[in-house]
């Protein structure tokens, strides 16, 4: 069924009585929320949000799964993912070092689109469900291969308690402690 046009027109305002009524109505709504306010403010950092598993947060690299295909670096729309060449011990020939390429990430550029995670043919990348990570300097945001393999530290976890947001029919977004 295609969309229909519905022609409407503005209500013509009545006289003084109508004006007084509307004023009282507006004030009544205000008073209602003055007595029973609806609050959903996150008291960060005393509280932090625990996102659902699908959340596209900081990315962690699992080196053992990587096949060095460079697909993640090629798809990255903001050129945040780059391949680096490293020399490492070959598990099959421990005496012969081998050269391999692995991705590293630059969080100064990453926009968390998740393309790299979705394109990786071996699921060597995954999203952590959080975004509240801080770095002391811009240079720190260019992760090394070692740092990229660790889940980034999240200071809010040690300082606050987790909350989740839920949609409620009566009160909109409500905050629940876990």
């Amino acid at each position, binding site marked *: 069924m*295609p969309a229909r046009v519905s*022609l409407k027109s503005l209500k013509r305002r009545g006289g003084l009585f109508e004006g007084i009524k509307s004023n009282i109505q507006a004030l009544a709504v205000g008073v209602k929320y003055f007595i029973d306010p609806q609050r959903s403010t996150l008291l960060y950092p005393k509280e932090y949000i625990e996102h659902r598993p699908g959340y*596209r947060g900081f990315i962690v690299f699992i080196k053992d799964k990587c096949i060095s295909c460079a697909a993640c670096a090629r798809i990255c729309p903001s050129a945040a993912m780059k391949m680096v060449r490293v020399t490492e011990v070959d598990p099959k020939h421990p005496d012969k070092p081998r050269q391999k390429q692995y991705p590293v990430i630059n969080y100064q550029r990453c926009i968390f689109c998740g393309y790299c995670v979705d394109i990786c043919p071996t699921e060597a990348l995954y999203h952590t469900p959080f975004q509240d990570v801080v770095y002391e300097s811009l240079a720190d945001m260019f992760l090394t291969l070692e740092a990229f393999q660790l889940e980034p530290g999240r200071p809010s976890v040690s300082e606050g308690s987790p909350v989740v947001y839920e949609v409620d029919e009566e009160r909109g977004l409500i905050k629940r402690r876990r």
Partner: protein
Amino acid sequence: MEGQKLQGMVVRRVEKELYEVFIGPQHPGSGHMRIIVRLDGDVIVEADPDIGYVHRTMEKLSEVREWLKPIPLLERMTIIDACNITVPYVNALEKLMDKSPPPRASYLRVLLCEINRVASHLYGFGIFGVFLGHSTMYMWAFGDREVFVELAEILTGARLTHSYPIPGGVRRDMPQDFPEMARRAVRYMRGRLEEYRRIFVDNPVIVKRLEGVGVISRNKAAELGIVGPNVRASGIRYDVRLAEPYEVYDELDFEIPVFEEGDALARTWVRVEEIKQSLSIIEQAVDWLERHKGEPIIPKEDYDKLPKLHREVYEKTGRVKLLPAHATMKIPAGKAIARGEMGRGEIIYYVESDGGTTPYRVRVVTPSARNAIVFKYIVPGHRLMDLPAIYGSIDYFPPEADR
């Protein structure tokens, strides 16, 4: 008077009895732009929208990115309406590739588009409220918008930059508990709209500021070529979802509200009515999606190409993995035009391919770019205090206009 500074503006004398006031460019309202108004007393005799402060060369940047990469880029034109702004681009690619999304993917796109539309209108209301000095509306609208932002986050994994549609389908299926959540949000918002009406739209103070202000007649609206809720408030029955239904809009049962008054109050009401319609579309979409569980969200020929691991991930999490071929995808040479209806009006994409891995040309015409002209032709003749009312009522968004 020479060089006198008022908060946020510099006033200088231009000619006898005429003052030139520069409003902006540092974020006077919803983004960086400047309106140069010339005042006689406090009556505006001339208004000049000075746009372009947030021009980011979106069209050019799209030309140097592989086909999938402009999606997260173009979103940034209107970050609060991300799905609506990318769906037509993806539709244009699909036309070139001769691919069409399965119905479930189309419904998911429409679902996110309508969630975005509600969020975009609420954002508009918030800004409008603060323009009129009604800070309650500002807090409420932004608080309630959060409900829809949360829904979008649960669906796509990101609050605003969803990057949801891809040629042929969408990137994720909806979580199991999503329909219930969406229904709760819809019921909540319906109740809230009634309260919005009482405290804002029907509030005599607001009505006095809006009624008969910034009247755009039907002819004028057509002549200026404005789009979206603004043109529908002037009695013109134009909505892309009506004129050229895309995705599954022709299967859904909804109304296009049209008002005839053409003033700021009518434009406000169009948005209120549109939110109601969007809520109904959200309900219809989740109902359909629940009835058609397990249907594919990417075309069958694409699914067949997926390796085992990719299928496992899809079955388990609903996440569609991309293939390495997507990074270097080539699209057959050709030209395509696609359009869609965003929260603020019609968006048009012209995409040209020369058969390579990047677009040859991407032309974008956004609704705000077409609505900016209202400042020039409608504002003169009003008092200075009517300017915020008109600005807020046309819901102008500079980053979208400047591209």
